[in-house]
Each structure stands twice: as C-alpha cells, then as structure tokens.
C-alpha cells in the first residue's frame, strides 16, 4: 500500500527525520491560510499516488498567500495519470544547494533491507540507474542486526557530505531505517534529500510503500489508506478478502490462486479476448465470498462474460459450485458464465453446475475459448 507524501513525512518526522513542516489543504482557501501560517514563499504540492506530479503541473511555487490560493485552485481537480487531485500539501519553499536520493527497499535478491543512495537526487532512481549506474550505492544491511554506524558512515561518505552534514545525516538515516522497520515497509525513500545553502540537511519529498501482508498488525497505517484514489470495486474486494485488480477488457475472471488467475487472463488474451480483471478468491473460498466476487466483476458494465476457473486444493469444488449457483441467482445483471472446476470434490461440483445450466469446460484452453466466444455473442446481442 502506497502512502501519500504527507503521510510518509508524518511517519518520518515521528522517527526524527529532519523535514519542513507542511500543512494539508483541500481547498484554495485552506492553501492560502496554510501559506499565511507558514510564511511565504511556499510550494503547493498535489497529493496523488502516481508519479510525475511535477511534469503534470501538480507542484507549484507561490510567493504570496494569494498566489498559493491561485496555484491551489489550478491544481485541485487536475487529473494526473487518471487520478483527480483532491488534497494538497503546502510546505515552506526551501533553497536548495544540492539534491540527493536516499531510499531503503526490501531487496528480494539480496534478502536484505538495502540502502539505495545517490548524489543525483531529484530524479527517479530508476532513471539514474539507467543513465549513471556508478552514481548509485546499493548497500544491503545485515538482516539480523540491521543498520549500524559503519553503514551510516559509508552512505554519508559516498554522498560526499562534509563533516557538519555527516553529523546531521546520522539521525536522518537512522530515522528512515527506524520508520521502515516500524511500519513494515517495502520501500521508504527521501527524494530529494537536500542541502540548503546554509548547509542544513532536509527531506523535501518522501514516499513510503507498505508491505500489505503486514498491514493487519498496523491498524494505524491501514487507516492512512487513501480510499479516494482507489477503484471502488478494489476497495470492496479487499474488504471481502478477495485479491482483485480491475483491467480494461470484457471477460471477467474468477479464479482460485494467483498464478492460475494470471494464467487464466493470459489464456483469455491468447484466445483473442481481453480480461476485465485479475481475481483470486483465495483459499477456502466460501459461497458468500464467491457471491461478492461476482458482484464486483459485474459492477464493471464492460464485462460481457465471466470465466470461472477453480482448481481444487485448499478450496472445495462443491462449495464453489454451490456459491456460483446461489450467487448467480441473486445477481441484478447476468452474463454468460463458463465454469471449470477441477480437483477436490469436482464430481459433486459438476453435478451442481449442470443442474444450474451453466457452460462447463474440461480444459482451461477450452474454458478460455468458450468465454471469448460467449462474450462475442453477448457483445453482438447487446
């Protein structure tokens, strides 16, 4: 789960990272009031989870409170990569002498929390990795004893900080690490970390991405989720414990298991169709969860057919079949459904499906082809 800049900064500040206190605003008037409280000049920043805010006009300098109000009016409502700006962060404008990048990632190859640092800050680190890989330090930390002073020094020297800045860097590096560990992050980055002409070291922008698997033990972080920026259907799915991602096609997919769900999408595409979603109903899926899954899939008006692919293992096929039949009975809208159930209790499942007159399929290839055909027919019919 990605956190907005202002949330990420809130967490970093709590762990002692030096940054400029900002004020959140959701109207031009609030932005003006914020600029007045801060004392001009300020920067008005769109709070969206997509990248490229700056280029899209979502980050603007304002010399006066009136200007802050005007800039806020321009930014609120702006659509950046499909996301409408609703929230702003107003921060004091900092004079920048030099920009750095400082991040921590959960490095699956190194099996470690790894520091990524670069003296080329302000640009995306992936960009620096392409144009100037030598400018990046990747420093895996010891997985059991964590960040140590020699690691901190190594990064500070790599960044070429002077003695004064090195002293200021310690609390920032340690704070970033503490924030990462305490919030079970996948990524925590400060970009840019800047030095001011006065030599001060400040985190100007921050981003934290949390490990979804750890969210259950961090209700205070779960509460920071920005629902306004998510698909309503994805929110509903998450609440039902369903892994669901909305896509652009016309064939809804309901599958048990993430790998098989991806494969089902791939085969729909191979059969000439377009998947409307990724959906993994998870292990031990019960009738009510299946019912919710259908409702979520059909909430998308583009969906013209549904492919259900269940390979029993943890999941019992008869329960799924019963759920499908029940769920279908209660749906407001129906589309053709191709159902394939294999494995545990699949014989009972097939009986149930047949009795309910659903399209069945033996193989996954067959199911995909039948779903594509059904969607075409439904599309023609519609």
């Amino acid at each position, binding site marked *: 789960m990605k956190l907005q800049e202002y949330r990420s900064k809130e967490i970093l500040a709590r762990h002692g990272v030096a940054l400029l206190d900002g004020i959140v605003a959701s109207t031009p008037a609030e932005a003006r009031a914020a600029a007045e409280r801060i004392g001009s000049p300020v920067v008005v920043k769109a709070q969206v989870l997509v990248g490229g805010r700056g280029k899209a006009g979502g980050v603007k300098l304002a010399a006066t409170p009136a200007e802050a109000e005007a800039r806020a009016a321009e930014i609120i409502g702006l659509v950046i990569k499909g996301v409408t700006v609703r929230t702003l962060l107003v921060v004091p404008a900092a004079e920048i002498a030099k920009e750095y990048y400082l991040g921590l990632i959960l490095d699956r190859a190194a099996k470690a929390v790894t520091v990524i640092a670069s003296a080329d800050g302000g640009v995306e680190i992936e960009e620096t990795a392409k144009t100037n890989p030598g400018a990046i330090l990747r420093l895996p930390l010891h997985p059991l004893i964590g960040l140590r002073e020699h690691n901190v020094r190594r990064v500070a020297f790599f960044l070429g900080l002077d003695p004064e800045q090195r002293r200021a860097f310690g609390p920032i590096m340690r704070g970033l690490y503490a924030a990462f560990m305490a919030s079970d992050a996948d990524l925590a980055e400060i970009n840019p970390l800047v030095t001011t002409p006065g030599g001060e070291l400040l985190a100007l922008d921050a981003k934290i991405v949390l490990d979804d*698997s750890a969210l259950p033990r961090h209700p205070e972080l779960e509460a920071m989720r920005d629902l306004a920026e998510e698909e309503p259907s994805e929110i509903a799915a998450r609440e039902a414990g369903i892994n669901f991602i909305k896509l652009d096609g016309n064939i809804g997919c309901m599958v048990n298991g993430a790998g098989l769900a991806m494969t089902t999408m791939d085969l729909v595409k191979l059969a000439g169709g377009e998947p409307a979603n990724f959906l993994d109903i998870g292990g031990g899926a019960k009738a009510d969860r299946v019912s919710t899954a259908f409702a979520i899939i059909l909430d998308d008006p583009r969906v013209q057919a549904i492919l259900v692919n269940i390979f029993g293992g943890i999941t019992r096929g008869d329960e799924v079949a019963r759920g499908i039949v029940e769920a279908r009975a209660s749906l407001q809208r129906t589309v053709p459904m191709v159902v394939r159930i*294999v494995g545990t209790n699949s014989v009972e499942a097939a009986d149930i499906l047949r009795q309910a007159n659903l399209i069945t399929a033996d193989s996954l290839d067959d199911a995909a082809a039948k779903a594509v055909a059904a969607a075409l027919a439904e599309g023609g019919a519609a």
Partner: protein
Amino acid sequence: MSILVNNATRLLVQGITGREGEFHSRAMLEYGTPIVAGMTPGKGGQSALDGRVPVYDTVAEAVEQTGANASCIFVPAPAAPDAMLEAAEAGIPLIFCITEGIPALDMLAVYHVLRAKGARLIGPNCPGATSVSEAKVGIIPGEIHRRGPVGLVSRSGTLTYEVVQAMTDAGLGQTTCVGIGGDPIVGSNFIDMLSMFNEDPETEAIVMIGEIGGDEEERAAAYCAREVRKPMAAFVAGRTAPPGRRMGHAGAIISGGAGTAESKRLALEAAGIRVADSPSQIPGLLRAAGVR
C-alpha cells in the same frame, strides 16, 4: 528416487489440530505420508486424526519422541515465523510452510536464521511437495499425480496442479512436484530445486513454472544453461499483468519495467528451454524434447 520427501520422511505437522491442518493431514495420511507427530501448544498428550497421530506441546519434544525429520506448518501468519524458528531450533532439517500472508520483514529474519542452521525451508505461501507414490507434504491434491520421470518446480499453487494434471492426462508422470511459494522472500528458490532434480537419477526431465516479479526465473535460466543437461519445459504466468500491481502473490509485481513475463520467457528461451503459451502445451513440449 525423488527429491525432498520420500518413504523415509517422518513428518511432523505443526498446527495439526487446526481446521486446515487437520483436513490436509488427513489427506497426507491417506496418500501414505508417514506423519509421525503433530504439534499444538497446550494439546500435548492428546492425539489427532482419530488417534493415529500423537500430539506434542513443543517441536523439541515431538522430535525427541518420534524422530521427526520434516515438518509441515499450517499455523496462522502471526505465529508462523515462530513455528519455523521452533522447527529449525529443534533440528528439523526440512520445513514446509504452507501459511500465506507472512510479513516480509519477519521472513527476512527467519530466512537467514534457518539458513545458518542448515535447515531447508520450502515456502512460505506454498502448496508443498509430492514425491509421487511416496509422500505428499502440504496441500497438493494427491490424485492429480502419476509416477513418472518428470520433476516439476513452481512458484504457484493451483497453477501447479493445472500443469501436473495436464501431464498426468498426457501420460507423463512425475518424480517430485514442488511449489516453492509466491512470496518475495521464500526459503528455497528455483535453482535450489533445479539442482536437486539435476542430481536425482530418476528425474529425466524438468518442468519449471514461473510468474512475473523478481528475477528468479532469469537466474534459474542462467543456471540451467550452465548446469542442466536434462530436457526442460517452462511456463511463465502473467503476460497480461499490468505493471506496478501486486497480482495476488506478494512477490508477483512488475516494478520499474523489471520482472515481466516477457523478460523471463526470453531468458528461458536463451537458455534453450522451451516455453509454453498454455499449461496444456507442456506435455507436448516434453514429448518433443524426447521425454517418454
């Protein structure tokens, strides 16, 4: 022969009295897996599965009393890291963790502690392994298998079953089928399993099922090009997955243009491995590579 588990396996099930633990332990027993002990703290002295399996309070006691040499973990995510540590601490050399949803930072510590102990971990968030007609550990349905010459390793659960079923239907049996798990941090990777299959005399061909995210498939491809002389076939799930989204498995995410199905397919093909477009093509690719 086979890899990981066989007739000599003496299995302990951690969380045997839970709903999933009991359900799958029953299936394992029915398959013929020698389950010698169960473990649920506070239920020591009782027995599970209609009196067929003694239950202990601690893994240490279970090992001492029964000589368990492998463990299968069904405990919920918050307790699973501790369960893995307990198994390793008690000297169990082979640990399967079925549990999904374990935080990555927890797994980081567990991974390194188990490695230092010399314990092999399969999973977490994995379906386990079946050495066909010998022993099945985890949740893979037993009836989809048929004994034969192909070793299979996969990052998925049900996708594994799909491929196994396709092979069995085509008359191509398996030595061992193992799912290594879909999390970013898993105990064993493709290369670990590939090298075991490579050294197993009965395994004549290997199937590898990958998916988007990370670069394990690319590394495995490089390893295969260097070390493996047995016929291989592969499949990679997620060609239609959008970038930046986590596709169910915590590990299945395309980030910064890396970890795509295309990159993995290309790496595998460059290593001389045939890559199927659909699981159903796997048997054909194996036959074409001369597997009988």
